[in-house]
């Protein structure tokens, strides 16, 4: 991991296309501005991780669970207005 120090208002350039600027530092919170091409997806790490985790849990549901789910669906079908 590359480690470097930046002051408020200073920035970092990654691959001449992505610019990360330190906008403000307040206590233990750093506000960052990111300029990047549109096709680059930018996520808060914990949000991306939570989606990865949810996807892994959703992947290839067990046939038995799908069967139970289907049963549940049939029962609710009549109730749904």
């Amino acid at each position, binding site marked *: 991991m590359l480690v470097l120090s930046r002051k408020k208002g200073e920035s970092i350039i990654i691959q001449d296309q992505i610019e990360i600027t330190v906008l403000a530092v307040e206590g233990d919170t750093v506000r960052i501005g990111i300029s990047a091409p*549109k*096709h680059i*997806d930018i*996520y*808060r790490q914990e*949000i*991306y991780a*939570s*989606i*990865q*985790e*949810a*996807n*892994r*849990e*959703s*992947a*290839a*549901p*067990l*046939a038995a*669970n*799908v069967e*139970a*789910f*289907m*049963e*549940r*669906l049939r029962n*609710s079908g009549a109730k749904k207005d």
Partner: protein
Amino acid sequence: MIIQTSIWGDIEVQEQEIFHFPKGLPGFENEHRFALIPWEDTPFIYLQSLQEPELSFLLVNPFLFAPDYSFELPEADREELEIQEQVQVYAMVTIQKQVSQSTMNLLAPVVLNPEIKTGKQVVLHQSGYKTRCLIWPEEQLESAKGGV
């Protein structure tokens, strides 16, 4: 074409049911081609990887279970998917052991462009939606009465 699946064995899918996910899905970044296989007579549909027979996801039309669900598709995602007019939105389902507690991911819907057959799981930043929203929230209330 014939594709392999762990749930139904070898099945035939039509070319128009195959979607390309250029970035894959979070957690499955190397899976780029999926077939959409409808679960007949239900609002559910399977997203089956063409590369990995074992890999499939259950998707649902989220608006049916969350009628208030709404979001603005970010401009960058719209451009990436080259959406002109048609768009399809699905939520990924997680079937829980207790099926009535099953959830859908409203934070990161699967958005498809049916015209050019591309797809992406879009993350709705700052939307307040969660990755695990109960499909049948009323049951949560009922079961919570005694517990909490």
